[in-house]
């Protein structure tokens, strides 16, 4: 799955209902995802922007590694 980073920008989003606090995302992308005290990733409704290619790559690992497929990388088109 080749994603070419564009000027539009990408964000990392989580479906909080699917998320079950496995924590793989934090291991794979610690600079993007911090954990709260209950084992859940801190990704908010105002989503985490992926500013460069490294961030994007880390995010892709996290998305692939999530056992519940709760993470998604979305392109922002402007206001959400």
């Amino acid at each position: 799955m080749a994603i070419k980073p564009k000027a539009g920008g990408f964000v990392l989003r989580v479906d909080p209902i699917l998320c079950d606090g496995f924590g793989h995302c934090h291991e794979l992308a610690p600079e993007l995802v911090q954990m709260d005290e209950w084992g859940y990733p801190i990704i908010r409704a105002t989503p985490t922007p992926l500013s460069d290619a490294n961030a994007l790559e880390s995010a892709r690992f996290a998305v692939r590694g999530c056992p519940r497929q709760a993470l998604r990388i979305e392109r922002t088109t402007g206001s959400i």
Partner: protein
Amino acid sequence: MIALTSPYLWYTTRATGFVALILFTLVVALGTFVANRIGGTYVGRFELNELHRSISMVAIVFLMVHILTTLLDSYVPTGWISAVIPLTSKYEPVHVALGAVAFDLILAVWVSSLLKARIANRSWRFIHWFSWLALASALAHSVLTGTDSRSSWGLALVVTCGAVVLASALWRYFARPTRAAGRTALSPLSVAPLDGDAPEQPARRDRRR
């Protein structure tokens, strides 16, 4: 249709069968480690998950070789279709059927995992639960069919694998999540909703759990 008559096919079948069994046992054990959230301090949780995924690929390769060599070997006239449809083999129909059932289920789990990003997580999990049944069927197949399971080491191997799978199953069951986590679970064993007060109108899509 080629039917070969080399004893090496027969040896390969038996050997790859055992290896596949051992590897799938390992896969199930690793899967249980992942489900029970082991890791995070000395080994990464994602590493166990990756091992689970990659070893399953190796196991499938061995399984394919096992099936292929069985089908090619004229010593055991199973017929090609018996690999996927149970009870169609001319040779030991029940024993081969157990293998076919295991293979079908593993195929379903594999394909659903290839498509994991594209299908609903609930659907993926529902199919994934059947891997336990696949292992049970594979173990039964090994005990009943295997020439080698009549020998002490063969039997010991199968029994050990069986013990590991059983232990994993018990651990999985007793350590299952009871709160918050796991609400999207769709195990075949999940409890059906109580039919208390009927709604005033029937639900628009009758998608019962």
